[in-house]
Each structure stands twice: as structure tokens, then as C-alpha cells.
């Protein structure tokens, strides 16, 4: 599978994608106030300081919403596909997106866990699957 829109890491996010490629789910933790944040960026919005370190977290969340895409938004992709919006358990107020890896539709607020999918060489995406599977 070749992605029509592969990730385009920038100078803030490249280390995050590298860790995802090693099947590690990491977010930034502020050295000063300990606030966790995602996606990667230089400053802590809580204390406005720069110093931080990676913190490996449990890749767990809950289902906040999802869509089933029918319009051909992606060139060459005709089948309906489901994208889920999950709330990270470890990072307050943080919503992330991903493919849904289950045969059944999601349920509101159900626990989910990340699965790492190497979709092509050097490209690993974080998808989501029900915690009870």
C-alpha cells in the first residue's frame, strides 16, 4: 500500500515519527511544569517554557467520535473507510486521529489501544483498535 498523502514530518515532529517507527508512543513532557503535550512543538502552552523531554506513555485512549468516508477524498481510494478520533488517556485534552482496526464500528467512549502499522518502508502510522479485542 502506498499512501496518497504520506506524513510530512517537520523539524518539530521528525523525532516523534522516528519513535513511532520503533513502535513507541511518546509525547513531550515539560521540564518545568510536567505538562504533557501532543503534537510536538517547542513551547509548553501552560508555562511558556521551552525545555522538555520525551515521555513514553501507554498508547491508550477512548473513542470520542468517528466518520465513515464515502466521498473519494483520496485519489484511488473508492471503498468507504472509517477514521476514528480518540482522546488520549495520558494527555489531558488531547484528541488524535487514526484508522480503525476492527471488524465492527466503534462505540462512544469505549477504551481503545494504539496499533502501529508499517504501511510502507519507513512509514509507520498509529491506528486504533478496541481494548477488548
Amino acid at each position: 500500500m502506498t499512501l496518497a498523502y504520506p506524513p510530512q514530518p517537520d523539524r518539530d515532529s521528525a523525532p516523534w515519527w522516528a519513535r513511532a517507527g520503533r513502535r513507541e508512543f511518546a509525547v513531550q513532557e515539560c521540564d518545568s511544569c510536567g505538562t504533557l503535550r501532543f503534537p510536538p512543538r517547542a513551547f509548553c502552552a501552560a508555562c511558556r517554557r521551552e525545555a522538555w523531554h520525551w515521555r513514553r506513555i501507554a498508547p491508550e485512549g477512548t473513542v470520542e467520535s468517528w466518520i465513515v468516508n464515502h466521498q473519494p477524498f483520496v485519489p484511488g481510494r473508492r471503498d468507504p473507510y472509517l477514521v476514528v478520533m480518540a482522546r488520549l488517556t495520558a494527555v489531558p485534552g488531547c484528541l488524535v486521529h487514526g484508522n480503525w482496526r476492527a471488524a465492527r464500528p466503534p462505540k462512544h467512549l469505549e477504551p481503545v489501544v494504539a496499533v502501529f502499522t508499517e504501511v510502507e518502508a519507513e512509514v509507520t502510522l498509529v491506528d486504533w483498535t478496541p481494548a477488548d479485542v
Partner: protein
Amino acid sequence: MTLVPKRLLELRDRTAIAGIGYTPFTKDSGVSTLTLACRAVLAALEDAGLTPDDVDGLATHRVGDSAAPSLVAPALGLDVTWHLDQFGGGSVSHAVVGQAALAVAAGVADTVVCYRAINARSEFRMGGTGRGVPVSPEVQYQAPYGLVAPAQHFALYARAHMLRYGTRPEHFGHLAVTQRANAVKNPRALMRTPITLDDYLASRWIAEPFRLLDCCLETDGACAVVVTTAERARALRRPRVLISAAAWGGGTSHLSCDDPTVTGAAALAPRLYAQAGLGPGDIDVAELYDCFTYSVIVQLEDYGFCPKGEGGPYAASGAIGPGGELPVNTHGGFLSEGYVHGLNHVAEAVSQLRGEAGDRQVPGAEVALSTAQPGYILPATSALILRRA
């Protein structure tokens, strides 16, 4: 930090919208956005009873899809001493008018024409299909999943609202049906065939929970409004419509947000109302940014017309239709009139306050709210409260 700086309160009703202008709305204009912009600017000046020689300011917003003021000014031979070329989509649409009002109130320009000109169907489709993904850091965490178009993001927010508050497809459908009925009475509207709730429910899926009739049109067209001082507008030929409040800014969220069912409008509304010295109960007609049905539902809540979570039932109650307590999107909105990214909402509000909206006129409308994209995807929005003098 005070809610509204004193200086902003002093600007209440100091500026006015003295003219509005449109090109026809079509699916293929056959002309450049520069041509569309020039036509709308001249139409707005004609409406105001002004000439191009009266113009000393031009303002627009765009996302790399339209002609800049620095192109429009020489194309029309305008001697412009102040201009604004704002990067941004629907969320900044009303900030453009607000910035023009600030320039006029500060005395650095006397007459500013704000315009938006797009070939959003024939050249640069906002719907995302078949075009590249905009460059934004957050896109890298979305596009690989095939999450590339505004309809998909708003559908995610809409389902979150449905799951949390019990909002139903029929609530969205009622809104689409009501706005289409308004468009039937609007000669400018692209979609003038009435629809029923069954038509809505039978329309094809775009991104569940959104159907085709949840989504706005993609339109070629332009719209312009003339901003000048309230004093100067008094001498012009059209009924005066005063800018009672203009606010922009909004929330603080990034890709992450605490609550996907609350928009930047919830943070903006208290400032906006304070600037005008008014509240939701004073609004006679509301032109609410309707890129999708859901964006209207959430704004009914975030601008304080009903409690959080009750936007769907409120919309379906008849309150937003003709004769209701808050007629909404009287022109048919982006869903049925046409999509000019925000400025056609401002122009419709002006028509209503002048009492010139024809068959769709809200009787006795004195105060109008007009709003921008409420602050999803990026956490900023903008809005105006306009008042008949």
C-alpha cells in the same frame, strides 16, 4: 485583562456599511478571480452611491486562491493608501470587515471596500477532492489517514455532538430544509428547488454522519461591502447600517482540544456582545457560518441562543425559520445561496437591516449577527453585530 478594551467600546456604531455588491453566483464563472473582485467592488460602490475615486482602502482574505488588493487596486485605478491582505479562510472572513472598521475609525482610511472573490467550484475546490493538502503542521497527523477535507473534520465534530447530546440527523435535516426554503425566495441563490426532510435523509453519504445536503455549495462568485464612517454614511443614499461590534480571536486549542463540541465562538461571544452592549435576546436575525449544517447548530449554542447541547432541537423547533424567534441564514446560506466564504452573510445582514430583503425580509429587523467559521480546525473565529441606524 478586561473583557473588552475601553477604546473598542468607544468604536461602537462609529463605522457603517454603506454599500454591498455581488457578482452572479455560478458553478463556472469563466473569468478570473481578479475580474470577479473588480466587478463586486464596483457593484458595492454603485450601491453606496460612491465612485472608485472615493476609495482609499481595500481589504480581503484568501488562501492562495484569489486576487490580492495589490492587484485589484491597479486593475481599477484605485489610489489605495491602506490595504489588508489577510491569509485565511472562513474563520477570518468577518475580521476583514472588523479590521476595515478599525482603519476607518482610526482615520487612516475613509472608504474601505472589503471583498472576497473565488472560483471555488471551477478552479480551487474547498471540498478537497482532487487537490493537494494545505501545508500546516497538523495535517501530517491527519492526511495519512485520508482525513483531508473540511467535511470530514466537521463530520467528526458533528458525531461527537450527536453522541454526547443526542443530536439527530433530523435536526441537521431541518436546518437544510429551512435554509433551502429561504433560498427559494432569494433570486440570487443557486439552489431554488424546495427540499423535504425525506430528500435530506435520502441524499448520498459524503462522510457519515454527513450527507450531501449537510454540505455547502462550492461556488464561483464574489461579494463586496463598503465600510466608511457612520457620519459619512449619513450623507450617502442607502439606509445606514452601523457596525456595533466586531470581534475576532477565540480559543486556545491546538490539534488537541478539550471539547470538540465547543467552538472558539463560545470564547468570542461575550466580547462581541459586550462591544455592542447587547445580548443574544437582542438579535433579530442571524447569518451563521454554514459550511455544514452542524456548524450552525453549534453556533446557536455558542452564541447563547440556547443551552449547550440543545442546538439541534432548537433548530428543529421552528425558531430559526421565517416568523421564528431567530430567523437564521435568510438568504439560504452557503448551503443554498452560494459559498463566498463569509462575506455574503454580511451582505445579507445588511439587506435585512435596510428592509430590502424582498420576500425573505424579517419584519422590523433592527439588529443582526453575522459570523465566521466558528473556530474549528484552527482555533480562531470572527463576527459582527450590525444595527440599523
